[in-house]
Every structure is written in C-alpha cells, then in structure tokens.
C-alpha cells in the first residue's frame, strides 16, 4: 500500500482523481486489484472508492451510511445543487467567449488573458461575467473585470474543476470533475423527468 500513499492522501483530502489531475494515479485506480486494495485499506475509515458512470473520475464516498455520513452528504448535496447554475453559466460563457463550437471537456485549456481580452470589448459578455462573478458561489466583490475573472478561476480551481499547471502562469486545464458535473445534471434530469433535452432531433421537433 505504501506506493499508493500520496494517492490515498489526495483521495482522503477529497480530491477528484482523473486522467488530467494525475495520470499515473488514475491508471492505477483503473485496475481492479488496486481498487480492492484501496477499499480494503479505507474500510476502517468508513470510506470507499466511488466513480462516475464512465469511470473517468474517482473520489471517496462512505462505505456505510450512518447518521453522520448522511448529514455530511446532505450538506454536500445542498452545495452541489447551489453550484449548478453558476457552473453551467460559466461553461456557457466560456464556450461563447472563446467561440468554441462545443462545450468544455476534460483536457481543454483556457488562457486567462485571452478570456479577459475577448470579454473586455463585448458589453454583453462583460455584464454576464460580472453578474456571474457576484454569484455567491464565486463571491467576487470587485468591479474590475480582471479581478472578477481571477476570482472565478480561483474558485473553480479550489473546487477542482480547473487545474493550474504553473502557479505563475495564468492558464488552466479543465479536469475530469466537469464530467462528474455533467453526470450529476444528467442524473437529476433523468430522475426528476425534467423537460431538459440533449438530443438535437427532439429539439428540432419542439
């Protein structure tokens, strides 16, 4: 187990492990033997390895759902639900600002400076960004575009949606936690039968 020490530490700290955040660790986690080893090790801590539907991201969940665990899950879930709209709006904003024809996926790179430059001269993008920055998930108090953007990206980094490979360089890589977010949305949509379509043909019919 010693070889997985750093990985266990990251998992215990609540990190999401994907191909982007730690390729080696991710490869290890994809092996069934490692999964068993880690689950065995985590058993006394009431933790187990959990992944999303297509196994693109791994994180820790509770092994046994006692009262404390459920309380923690409830508050975690409330946070997740609260962050859905700001995150979705951010995804849309980035897609539109950068002129991309598809949504952000794990591994995509965003240059902060480019994002600021493209937003700067566009009044409507600026307004949307400033509204988004003041959302309580991002919680920016600033009026300055530059610091609003920085605050947004800092919060996304804290929440594990973005990875900043060099502390001094302002470029970010989207992590696999975005896949998790999409899975959560899809799950809620399916479970609650929300009228939210994701196939173009049906949209065209509407």
């Amino acid at each position, binding site marked *: 187990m010693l070889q997985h020490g750093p990985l266990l*530490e990251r998992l*215990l*700290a*609540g990190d999401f492990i994907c191909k982007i955040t730690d390729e080696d660790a991710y490869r290890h986690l994809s092996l069934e033997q490692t999964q068993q080893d880690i689950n065995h090790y985590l058993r006394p*801590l*009431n*933790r187990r390895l*959990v*992944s*999303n*539907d297509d196994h693109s991201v791994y*994180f*820790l*969940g*509770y092994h046994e*759902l006692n009262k404390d*665990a*459920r309380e*923690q*899950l*409830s508050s*975690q*879930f409330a946070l*997740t*639900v609260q962050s*859905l*709209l700001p995150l*979705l*709006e951010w*995804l*849309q904003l980035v*897609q539109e600002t950068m002129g991309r*024809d*598809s*949504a952000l*996926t794990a591994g995509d790179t965003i240059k902060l400076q480019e994002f600021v430059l493209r937003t700067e001269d566009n009044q409507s993008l600026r307004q949307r960004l400033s509204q988004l920055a003041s959302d309580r998930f991002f919680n920016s108090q600033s009026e300055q575009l530059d610091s609003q953007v920085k605050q947004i990206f800092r919060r996304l980094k804290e929440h594990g949606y973005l990875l900043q490979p060099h502390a001094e360089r302002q470029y970010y890589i989207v992590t696999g936690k975005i896949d*998790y977010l*999409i*899975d*959560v*949305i*899809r*799950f*809620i*949509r399916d*479970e*609650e039968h*929300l*009228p*939210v*379509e*994701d*196939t*173009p043909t049906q*949209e065209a019919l509407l």
Partner: protein
Amino acid sequence: MAPLDSANTSSNLFSIGAERLALLGKHHKQLMQGYLDGFIDESAFSEGALKKLIAARILWRPDEQQPLALRPLVSELIASMVADENRRQINADVAEKLEQIRNRVQAYRDAQYKGDYSVAELQLQRLTEHVHDLSGQFEEAIDSLWHRLNSDFGFVSSLDDKIRENERAQKQLRRLLDGLDLLDFTELIELSEGNNHLRKLLVSQLQSQLSSHHSSLLEVQKRLVELLAKFRQQQSRSLLIANMAAFLRQHPKYQPADYPNRSEVPTLFNQAASIKPHAAIALDNASERQTLAELVRALPRHTPVTLLDTQSANFSALLQDEEIAARQQALKTDVENFYLRVIDQGGKLSALSYLEQQALTWDSEIWLYQIIAEYQALPVDEKAMFAMLREEAPASDFNSLLLIRDISISLQAA
C-alpha cells in the same frame, strides 16, 4: 498506317495539351482567385486571353446571366492539389473503370491474335494506365478521407456541419467499399489467363494494392464512426448544459429530491467529507532519534536579547485605573483633532479659543500641557510643519518669570 496516324494525333495532342497547360500557368493568379471567388473577374483578362481560356475548356459560362467560372474539372484539379476538403470530390465509380479494363484486355488480345504488336503494345500501355487510374482513384479518396479525419473536420466551423460532413464521408466510404466489392479477382484471373504481363498487372499488382486500400478504408471507417460518436457526445453535452441552465434560470426555487437520505444513495452523491492525515515523529522509536535530533539542530536558534534594565519614567504605568486611562485617551484624541483642525484650516489657531469653541471640558492648563506634549512628541520632520507661538506675560511686575497665557499653532509651509 496506324502507327503513323497515332503518331500524328499524338504530336497534335501534345502541342495542344502543352499550349493549354501553359495557359493555366500564364494566368495562375487570376484563375486561383476565380477558384476562391467562385467566378472569374473578366476585367483581369484581355479579350484574346478569355477566348483562349474558353476554347481550352478551362473557363465556361454556366448560364447566359452568369459570370465566367472555372470548369468543374479544373476546380476539382485545384481542390485535389491543395487538399481543399470543402471542394474535393471523391470518385467512387468502379464499374465504369472495370468495363474499360475489360475492353482494353479484349482489344489487346485481339491485336496480339492479329499479330499487330505495336497496337498490342499501345493497348497494353492504355490498360496499365487504367489499372493505375483505378488504384489512384482509391488512393486519392483515402487521402482525402484521412485528411478530413485528421483535421477533425476543421474546414467547417460548426459542430452540426462537422456531423453532416462526417456522415457524408461515411456515405462516400460505403460507396468506395461497394466499389471494391465489384472487383472480382476470379474474373481478373480469367482475363489474364496465359499472359504474364496481364497476370502481373491485373492480379498480383492490383490485388495487393486493392487489399491495402481495403484495410485503409476499414480503418478510416472505424475512426469516422468513433469521431462521429465524439461529435454527437459533444453536441448532446452542449445542449444539456444550455437547456439545464435555461431550466434552472426559469425555476430559481427548484430543489431536486433529497437523494442523500434515500435508502439507496446514488453513488454520484456519495461524496465523503475530507480527512487530512497528520503525522509527527514517533518519540518512542529509537531509530528515529537521529532524525529528530537533526531536525531539532536545524531549528533556527533563538538568541536572547538582553535588555538593559533601564530605570525610566513610565507614564502609562501610573495609569492603572481604567477610567483615568480612558480620560487620558480622550484628551489625546481631542488634541489630535485640534492639530487636524490646524491642518484643515491652514492659518493660525489659538488653543484656548478652540477649547472654548468646541465646548470641551478640559482644564485649560491641562489642555495647553497636552498640546505642548503632543507637539514635542511629533517626529522631527513633522514638527517642522507646525509653528508654535506662545503668548506669554511676566508673572508680575517684579517677577520676570514668563507665564504662558495661550498657545497658537499654525501650519508652516514646508
């Protein structure tokens, strides 16, 4: 007769072909511009040049009303040369080529039978060209498909267009594969029976080329299907994001079911609280003593500064009583306000008139003392900013001790 004739036509063909190819080179810039614009700017050419280009079947007028344009075959040639996937065409017609090959084989055999060896030679030459054309046709198509695949269909901008282009490429690919199926090697073996040249050309050479084309096509097909799946996934993801965001905006109070308290918590929402493992050196472990000792030695050494025990008057120490301390602080604040007023006003300000004006309750003597004390306490450069004027008078006619009646502070220009 026949060889002479063909030599004549071929020399004629040669001169006309060379002349017309030269036309392409002579007007290359204008023609390329025409390719990009979709029509020809007639003012860029002289009357004679236009006539020549039309006669050479390089330009044509599709309709009376339309401007001149490049002939489709010329456009196709350029598209293939510059790998312009928007305009490049794939020719999947195998049946026609096969028919030509059959005819040429027949003509070749007839000529051989008649003993007309020069004609046979010529026919064999044409047959070789047809076989190469057939193989080249697949090669060109495969090159175009790979090119499109490797650029992720980057020549169209929107995802919808990419999906449409991918579907078009898959249809072309199916036609190519169908075309390959038309090639029946038992037939080709029969055709080439008893002739080494034909067997080499039609069987061993063509077969190995076509089988490599076949496997290339299958690989391209696999990749196209994968890419299409990726495109579709991206498309559905974009739509999901847009539609869910719209839904949440329309229903700001929306709250999903309480998944964490279901009997079966969905794995997605089973996200445990973080644990941060801490560790320290084990003091009971003898083998770690060395490490511990090194760590301790590496700690920055604290050198105690011995302060001389100076006897000094300590004003605040006397003020043990909280009330007195508070009063002292209030007095200090009022004096500071006085100095601030001096700065604001700019002119001379008398301490006692300020005291009266502000209706402060301090004893006038204490007030003056505090103002002097504050003045003395200022740093040297700040002290220079203020000028202190004492209003003094002798204690009595016989005592020349000067008593301070009032103090005026004024701001001094730096």
